[in-house]
């Protein structure tokens, strides 16, 4: 019972993380393609500025939930995926300081250096997390003792790589739409065009990924066994289509929310399809790490449920307040006046 509740919390934490940090990772990836000059670069940075740090804490929370509720899964996942996680870590470190450092020195080379960190530090996490989750969906080479029989290249199989591309493209569209909601004029038009042209790639990759999921994983079988869960992939597909319709009308906020629905639907579909596995084993189904064989003690799960139910609503409350406070349109004028 508590294990199942925590499995849901685990999945929702990841889904919310991807929905929120997704737009700033995507916008960071598109940075060199969207910003023409220093003023536009600063507009892009300011479109992420008040939010990215708080968004990233959802990743820490997703990791923390894994550690607290499923310590064995945390131990196996983090040690088994050692190299990709270290790459993710270094990417996030350089990205985080890039925001702070880039405007601290009046030099082109200085800014170019930190902008490179910002771009690489946005692109790599999207790619790595996509590769990691696709591999988790299809199963990791884990033995009964939880030892990972493979290396970084084990993860770079066709399905894993397609997952990586999917995350990068979804986040890029999500980020371009976010920029369109926050800007006006030429920059907004370019952001919108970027979103609609990338949308074609997004749709093709998403359909290919969903099709390949049928053959490479057991997600569809698990979801079809409980047809009510079909609402999740349907939400993703509806989001994908609605996104395009709203973008064509220039309704950017609606398009961004449709993109959010796509991300929530897609991630929760993957999580629901995994249940009860957290890390299915491709070597031996019995060696899979599940919500039940990896869970913390009932007392810990109960206390932590109290903590989460008490604090997460507060967190969501003030984060929504921050989004509402900083929702104004960013222009060359507002950039000159502020910061």
């Amino acid at each position: 019972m508590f294990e199942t509740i925590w499995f849901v919390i685990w999945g929702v934490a990841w889904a919310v993380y991807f929905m929120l940090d997704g737009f700033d990772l995507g916008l960071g990836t598109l940075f060199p393609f969207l910003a023409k000059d220093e003023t536009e670069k600063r507009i892009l940075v300011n479109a992420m500025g008040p939010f990215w740090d708080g968004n990233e804490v959802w990743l820490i929370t997703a990791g923390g939930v894994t550690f607290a509720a499923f310590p064995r899964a945390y131990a196996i996942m983090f040690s088994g995926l050692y190299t990709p996680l270290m790459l993710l870590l270094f990417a996030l470190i350089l990205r985080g300081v890039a925001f702070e450092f880039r405007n601290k020195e009046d030099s082109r080379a200085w800014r170019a250096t930190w902008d490179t960190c910002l771009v690489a530090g946005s692109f790599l996490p999207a790619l790595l997390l996509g590769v990691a989750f696709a591999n988790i969906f299809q199963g990791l080479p884990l033995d009964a003792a939880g030892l990972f029989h493979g290396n970084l290249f084990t993860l770079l199989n066709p399905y894993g790589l397609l997952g990586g591309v999917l995350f990068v493209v979804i986040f890029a569209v999500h980020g371009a739409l976010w920029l369109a909601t926050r800007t006006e004029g030429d920059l907004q038009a370019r952001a919108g065009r970027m979103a609609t042209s990338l949308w074609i790639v997004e749709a093709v990759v998403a359909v290919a990924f969903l099709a390949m999921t049928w053959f490479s994983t057991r997600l569809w079988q698990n979801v079809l066994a409980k047809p009510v869960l079909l609402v999740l992939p349907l939400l993703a597909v509806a989001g994908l289509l609605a996104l395009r319709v709203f973008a064509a009308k220039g309704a950017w906020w609606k398009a961004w929310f449709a993109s959010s629905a796509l991300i929530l639907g897609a991630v929760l579909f993957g999580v629901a399809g995994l249940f009860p596995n957290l890390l299915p084993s491709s070597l031996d189904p019995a060696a899979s790490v599940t919500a039940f064989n990896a869970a913390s003690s009932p007392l810990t799960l109960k206390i932590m449920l109290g903590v989460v139910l008490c604090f997460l609503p507060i967190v969501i409350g003030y984060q929504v307040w921050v989004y509402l406070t900083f929702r104004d349109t960013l222009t060359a004028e507002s950039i000159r006046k502020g910061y």
Partner: protein
Amino acid sequence: MDVLALSRLQFAVATYFHFLFVPLTLGLSMLVAIMETLYVRSGDEDYKRMTKFWGKLFLINFAVGIVTGLTLEFQFGTNWSRYSAYVGDIFGSLLAIEATAAFFLESTFIAVWFFGWEKLSKKAHATAIWLVAIASNISAFWILVANAWMQHPTGFVMRNGRAELADFVAVITQRFAILEFIHTLGGAYLTAGFFVLGISAWHLIRKQETEFFRKSFRVAAVWTLVFALFEIAQGHMNAEILGKAQPTKLAAMEAHWETGRNVPMNLVAWPDAAHERNAVQGLAVPGGLSLMATYSTDGEVKGLKDYPVAERPPVLPVFLSFRAMVGLAFLFLAVGLWAFLKRHAITEQHRFLRVLPWLIPLPYLANELGWTIAELGRQPWIVYGLMKTSDAVSPISTGQVGTSLVAFFLVYALLGAVDFYLLFKFARKGPEAAPAAAK
């Protein structure tokens, strides 16, 4: 080197480096919050400029503190997976509480504070920095409760081949955790105090923005004296609990070999672990160690010889770190006292002002020495008495850890160089010109 040695080295690099930035975050956030409150209450523009100037330095420091903190959460899983699986029921929960109860608040409102000067009312804006300050201190609380549990595990049962939570309240209210928390905060606040004193002194010697830096100096002088006194008085309480909770650590800190009563404290010594004695020792305070550890000169203090060699920490580094840390603490008290007494006529204290900037690194050193005592003094245990460090390491390859270790050295060297360069640059540049002067 093997995976264990490499992983320990990597943990040491990551933790020492992270803790170069954390204390200033904890202390300076409070000082900046106090400055902004003074501004809101008095309307004095100087306090607003102080908030902005010290706030800018705070942010430069804060960025590296945050990102290097990510490493620590990752490392328990990547390099210490057997530990994580063994104690995650308790330790993992504490880290998760830290994220939901404190880290969210801190990370969200630091951005509100930075971007919100024009968007929020004065009071709301000052509230944002208070939330950052309080959240970062609450964050420290949960992290230190988790560390204290490794030092002195309590409130658990051994079940299903791991440590499981039995009494949550015991874990978060144990005396060891509370003492560790306030001791760490004291050190952090001193770090911020010396930082502000030192940079203010640098400008006062050069007669730049004298009024501005005299005000900054006065705030920091009171602050530094209070926490220097606090840290020394409170440090004594730690000795007492160590005698009970971690006798091998206390014995190593004092290079104390033979269990006995009425044990003196040797102010000078050179431990010789191979021969289980001190090669030299002198300046003994009769009954000093007994008094410190038990509040009675006749109290019994366990010596290292009571424990198997395999269960003793490395004596020399722990002993030397402790001597150096305590020596620094008394220096801090002397400096704090002088700064406080002379705070109204500080511009005449030329020699003192010239020395102060050079003292900025010393609290940093004291903090790192403190962690050396805490972590090295706990060895060979990762969880004292429960799990050895050598049993905790992940089943990973030397190639993996070796590569990541090199990457840590490179990336951290770069971050450290850039961050300290920027701190120097903006500290020397001084505050923005006052609005009146600008006209």
